[in-house]
């Protein structure tokens, strides 16, 4: 059974104008997104800036108001914040994009990591300290650093503190909102591999939000491509990378860099072809407003936003 089911999720932000501040229109940040994540898998959500992938993640965890649709965790409806029990909010945690602003600069590492423990578990000071030290060790930081402040750490180390905080309660689902995009490449690999390790160790499920296709290829089992709040294509990793059907996906996949210089010419030509195809068939794949059509299944797992034929 799927651990997380999202059905026709819509998150609209009102545009207010006029003297009475009436709502004149909506920005459709997320417009009818549906997916399901199996336990223990990593589901990748890819898209350009402003495509609504982060909003989707924040909507699921309850940081944004959901306009319509439903979110189910382990079969229980958690769309409404009030229906969410303590046990469920404990099982869903989030890793934030920016390791610099996601840690309170006025708190010591010990207090940062112990925050979720203090909210959900009754531990004595000693037990709590031990748990924090264990968690720090787990994320590869020295247990002695519990008395330091966030500004004494590098970006990568801070992100690990953020991860330690997210896994402190042994959640079932972690929403990772571009967890490595603020880090440099060498640290990215470290953090990603570490995330995979703890996934195996703790049996975590990830909703992995990213704009970096290389990372998604490395991390995810299933992938969805988002564009302007809608899904463009959804499928397994192989389907998306080897048989992209939508022109937008093709263009994205062709843009993945290759480090082999002998392929340079070939790749350049390939990209040009894809670009030409994109320019030619843009009107076929997107409707009059430039939005993607609704998804059509082309195999059991592969869904593509194709226009109605005929």
């Amino acid at each position, binding site marked *: 059974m799927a651990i997380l089911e999202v059905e026709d999720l819509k998150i609209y932000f009102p545009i207010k104008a006029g003297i009475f501040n009436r709502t004149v229109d909506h920005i459709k940040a997320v417009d009818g997104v549906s997916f399901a994540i199996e336990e223990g898998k990593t589901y990748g959500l890819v898209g350009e800036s402003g495509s609504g992938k982060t909003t989707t993640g924040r909507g699921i965890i*309850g940081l944004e108001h959901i306009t319509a649709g439903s979110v189910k965790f382990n079969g229980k409806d958690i769309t409404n914040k009030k229906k969410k029990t303590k046990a469920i909010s404990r099982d*869903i945690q*989030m890793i934030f*994009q920016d390791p610099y602003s996601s*840690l309170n600069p*006025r*708190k010591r590492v010990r207090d940062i990591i112990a*925050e979720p423990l203090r*909210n959900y578990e009754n531990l004595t000071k000693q037990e709590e300290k031990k748990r924090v030290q264990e968690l720090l060790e787990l994320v590869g930081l020295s247990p002695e650093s519990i*008395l330091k402040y966030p500004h004494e750490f590098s970006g990568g180390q801070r992100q690990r503190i953020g991860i330690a905080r997210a896994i402190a309660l042994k959640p079932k689902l972690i929403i990772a909102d571009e967890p490595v995009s603020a880090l440099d490449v060498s640290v990215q690999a470290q953090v990603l591999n570490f995330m995979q390790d703890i996934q195996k160790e703790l049996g975590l499920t990830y909703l992995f939000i990213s704009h970096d296709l290389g990372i998604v290829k490395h991390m995810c089992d299933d992938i969805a491509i988002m564009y302007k709040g809608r899904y463009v294509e959804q499928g397994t990793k192989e389907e998306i990378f080897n048989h992209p059907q939508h022109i937008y996906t093709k263009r994205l996949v062709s843009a993945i860099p290759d480090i082999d210089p002998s392929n340079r010419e070939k790749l350049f030509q390939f990209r040009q072809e894809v670009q030409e195809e994109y320019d030619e068939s843009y009107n076929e794949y997107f409707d009059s407003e430039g939005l993607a059509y609704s998804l059509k299944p082309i195999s059991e797992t592969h869904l593509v936003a194709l226009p109605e034929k005929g």
Partner: protein
Amino acid sequence: MEMNNMNMSSQQDSAKSPSGLKILWRELVRDKLALVSLILLILIIVFVYGVSFIMDEKEIVKVDLFAIHEPPSEEFILGTDYGGRDVFGQLIIGTRNSLSIGFIVTLLSGMIGITFGLIAGFFGGHIDNVLMRILDFFQVLPFIMLVIVFVSIVPNYTILAFSLIFTAFSWMGIARLIRSKALQEKELDYVQASRTLGTSNFKIIFREVMPNISSLIIVTLTLNLASNIGLESGLSFLGFGFPESTPSLGTLLSYATNPQTLEHRWWIWVPAAVMILVLMLAVRNVGEALRRATDARQRRG
């Protein structure tokens, strides 16, 4: 083990966290005016509270018809007023009263304003709207007039009652300032993170957001203190402050409305005027140094 921990944390404290305090200290040392002001302020406070402790207020306010308008002498360091009361004693006790009122009003209005502003800013939306309209209501009330009405109704008021009525009308500025900062702060990721970790709103407001705007709070309160010290003197000068049985800087000043006193009996009003000026300037100088210390671009040290 426990001891060890304690030691470690206190060591860390002195090594790491007071970087803010250190910056402050450097700023104060660099700004000689602020340093002198601070020392002067501490001296005045210690002196005033110390001396007023051993003074007998009843004795000072007792009218003595044989010693009217005495110039400064051995017996009366600063002479006497038209009731033969010792001006020096009145000055000390008046300063103590002004300082006490300043401190109490600053603290109370700070507490109300900070709580109000944090709640309005943090929750935003409708709660913010309702709270800000309440604040607007308080702001349009004619402050001085209400205080005068209050003073005429209540026959025998104390320092505390006086402070409370002032507090009721002076928390709005702080609340506005804190609200605007809280509006910014709540959008930051660490606040969002606390929400996803199950921390209650109350805890987020006072444990996460408030420490992060503490520098703004300290600076605002210090600068407010400067103006609050002068509050009581202003009203007493107008005749709506403390009665003559309670010594006050404002009462001493108001004697200067008599041209005779103004011209020939300087010892009655000059010390009080200088005291008010020095106190307010000193607090303001320290406050300005604090303000600069919180903004890296304006720092001198």
